[in-house]
């Protein structure tokens, strides 16, 4: 029950304190979702492994193509910009992240990653939504968790609170620039409402206040760093600018789509990874310029990796375990976690996972966001020493 939040006179937005105080949110988390199932084996390539080349006679990346970072592993050539971060100790890569009884459907596996459930359960709230529900500090701000999109992902939906969706600040402001609805909010007697109506009024009032706030914040600082001229690149630019403007947002959520590479994977994946890496590099650079990077952690995941064996169309089909990237200015242990995937010990042609994705969530929730990881994830998970 949101009794407490409903007791707040809804029409003076509960977020007013945040608006006036406007202090930096301390540690900031940026989640980057690679949608469609990024092929982890051609992202971090085991370029000395014969089994890899046997399974991918045409799709395998040759040792001369990959950006070698260890005796065993190298980056996809699209990740040149990320290699720089790796060399500076700003990147951790967790190999073989997954969960028991993996599901190979995009929808289902994305739900599992976004809710933080096991594959046997059907949860209707996201892991970050439940973080908002957990009475975390500053959570009353609707934009405490902000998704850069017109609609909100399940990951940011909680039972009583949800994150905030914003495609473009101008558009958000225009959508909410409705004098009639503003007048209605002002004129309504909050005690006259039934609980559900009261909830709608609260979301409406919060949205109006947030739209104005975020629009104003988006005008505070213009980054001079060169971000990719793509929707994803511009989303990251927006994130960099909002963080620099001292916005009271603690979690940012951004997606890059197109990784469902069943056909002619090589050029498409390389192009997408390049867009990803150059966007992230620019983001890091922008934050560093303003001495903010120590406060930022970037989590990158995809709903699954792909099968070890390439298919007949020079692509790959849906698989299981995958690598997860953590980028930040305060990593405790940069570099690789877990050995490179074992390509001989497979589960029906797919990689076995070595780390549960909820261990990563638990670590971020507990050690970075200082929240009750056990309660939010409804179970105990191993903390990984990356932060």
């Amino acid at each position, binding site marked *: 029950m949101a009794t407490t939040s409903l007791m707040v006179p809804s029409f003076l937005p509960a977020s007013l304190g945040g608006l006036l105080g406007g202090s930096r949110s301390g540690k900031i988390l940026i989640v980057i979702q690679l*949608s*469609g199932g990024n092929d982890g084996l051609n992202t971090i390539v085991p370029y000395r492994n014969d089994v890899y080349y046997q399974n991918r006679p045409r799709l395998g990346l040759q040792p001369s193509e990959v950006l070698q970072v260890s005796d065993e592993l190298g980056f996809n050539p699209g990740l040149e910009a990320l290699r720089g971060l790796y060399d500076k100790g700003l990147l951790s890569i967790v190999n073989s992240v997954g969960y028991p009884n993996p599901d190979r459907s*995009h*929808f*289902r596996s*994305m*739900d599992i990653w976004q809710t933080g459930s096991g594959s*046997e359960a*059907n949860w*209707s709230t996201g892991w970050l939504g439940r973080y908002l529900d957990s009475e975390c500090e500053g959570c009353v701000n*609707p934009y405490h968790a902000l998704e850069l*999109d*017109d*609609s*909100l992902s*399940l990951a940011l*939906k909680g*039972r*009583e609170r*949800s*994150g*905030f*969706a914003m*495609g473009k600040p101008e*558009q958000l402001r225009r*959508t909410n620039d*409705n*004098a*009639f*609805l503003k*007048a*209605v909010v002002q*004129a*309504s*007697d*909050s*005690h*006259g*409402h*039934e*609980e*559900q*109506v009261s*909830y*709608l*009024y609260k*979301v*409406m009032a*919060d*949205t109006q206040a*947030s739209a104005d706030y975020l629009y104003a914040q988006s005008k505070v600082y213009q980054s001079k760093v060169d971000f990719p001229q793509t*929707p*994803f690149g511009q989303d990251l630019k927006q994130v960099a600018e909002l963080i620099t403007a001292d916005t009271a947002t603690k979690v940012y959520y951004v997606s890059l*789509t*197109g990784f*469902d590479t069943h056909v002619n994977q090589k050029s*498409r994946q390389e192009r997408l990874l390049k867009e990803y890496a150059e966007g992230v590099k620019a983001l890091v650079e922008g934050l560093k310029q303003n001495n903010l990077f120590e406060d930022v952690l970037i989590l990158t995941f995809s*709903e699954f990796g792909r099968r070890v064996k390439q298919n*007949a*169309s020079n692509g790959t089909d849906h698989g299981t375990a995958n690598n997860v990237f953590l980028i930040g200015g305060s990593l405790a242990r940069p570099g690789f976690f877990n050995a490179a995937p074992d390509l001989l010990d497979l589960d029906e042609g797919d990689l076995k996972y070595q780390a549960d994705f909820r261990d990563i969530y638990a670590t971020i929730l507990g050690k970075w966001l200082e929240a009750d990881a056990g309660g939010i994830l409804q179970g105990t998970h191993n903390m990984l020493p990356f932060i």
Partner: protein
Amino acid sequence: MEKIQHLYWRAGFGLSPREWKEMQGASLQQAVDRLFREAGADIPVEAPPPPSERPSRNMSEAQKKKLQGQERESLTEVRKDWLLRMSNPRYSAFMERMSLFWHGHFACQSFSGTLAFQQLRTIRKYAFGRFGDLVLAIAQDPAMIRYLNNQQNHKDKPNENFARELMELFTIGRGHYTEQDIKEAARAFTGWSSNPQGIYTFRPQAHDYGAKTFFGKTGAFDGSDIINLILERRETARFITRKIYRYFVNEKVDEGLVDSLSRQFYDSEYDIGQLMRTIFESGWFYEPHNIGVKIKSPLELVAGIIRTLDVRFIDDKALIFLQRALGQVLYNPPNVAGWPGGKSWIDNATLMMRLNLPGYLFQLSEFSFRVKDEPEAAQQGKALRRIDATLDLEPLMQILEGVPRESYYDAFASFLLQAKPAFNPSLMARYTAQGSNWDFARTLAVRLMSLPEYQMC
């Protein structure tokens, strides 16, 4: 009339202005009878055009791809058609609403128009019949069999997915069975499969004919025996009754009422029609605390708007866009537990889309909204900027026939809003056109439909 409106919002998608006129002077009993009569005389759903490729086991990759593409397109048609049926007073609103309930209950994602249509036909066939018949038909429904992997349920390697959801979500609910019961039930459903043409097929060589012990009884049970054993449990009647109560009456459950309803449901051998009649003929259903307290689902909202304004979309892609933008796409529930409903429909983006939608339809404002990309999408999709539609406001305006201009607000508010606003109506004067009666009424309607209160039913 208030009671009839409540009935029509819960058993259907609200009254169209014409229906509202017709129902003036009708008794509540006549209204209930009319709903049941219409549901009984339902016009069958039309099958989507069949794919040109005939599915078979030895298709080439190219044929398979082509077929998948055609099935996807035909699924889009099924999604549009169903929403149009919900929106059109020509069809039985009660049948559409009851089917929508069962679709959310037996939540199923499909990528095939053929299979989605088959399942919809099955749901409609049993929507008001015996719950047991419906469960059995769903257990043999190819879309469900594929969604819950029952084709992979083989005696040598049972797949428990269907058996688990059957008990947890479709019939008895958590807490009334053991993990062992699931394992045994899964064995009973081995071999319940579907062939490439999408027809239910029993595969004897995959079926486990051995003895199973389920709910303490032992026998060589098959799937229908398991369903019967589940139906013997009173907890099953209660689980379903409670869910129907939450959906049709109130999310805040009166457990005593549910107890007595579920006893009746059990004793009637799970007669769904009879249960619905009891609810709609009861006095408590019409008590004020049950009126206007449910947040409309996206489909309920959109169907209601189309009915009220007689909306015709110039490009019917809008019917899909609205499902996606507002978060309820037919045959694509979030997971097998269905749409959680209530507050979960609402976030800043969906609420503002809901509140602004009547304005978009009246073409008072342009917008820009990008729905999330399908996971298979190669690149980011484009934002939609307009919903082009024609409206026929004549029937709506007839509600004002004989009403003096100063009472337009009351007349429209009582027709359009199930939850009464908590602000002084004089506010409206500043936000409505003050010219002709028509202009005034038109802007009044769009304002009322833009209120949070309009989201309630």
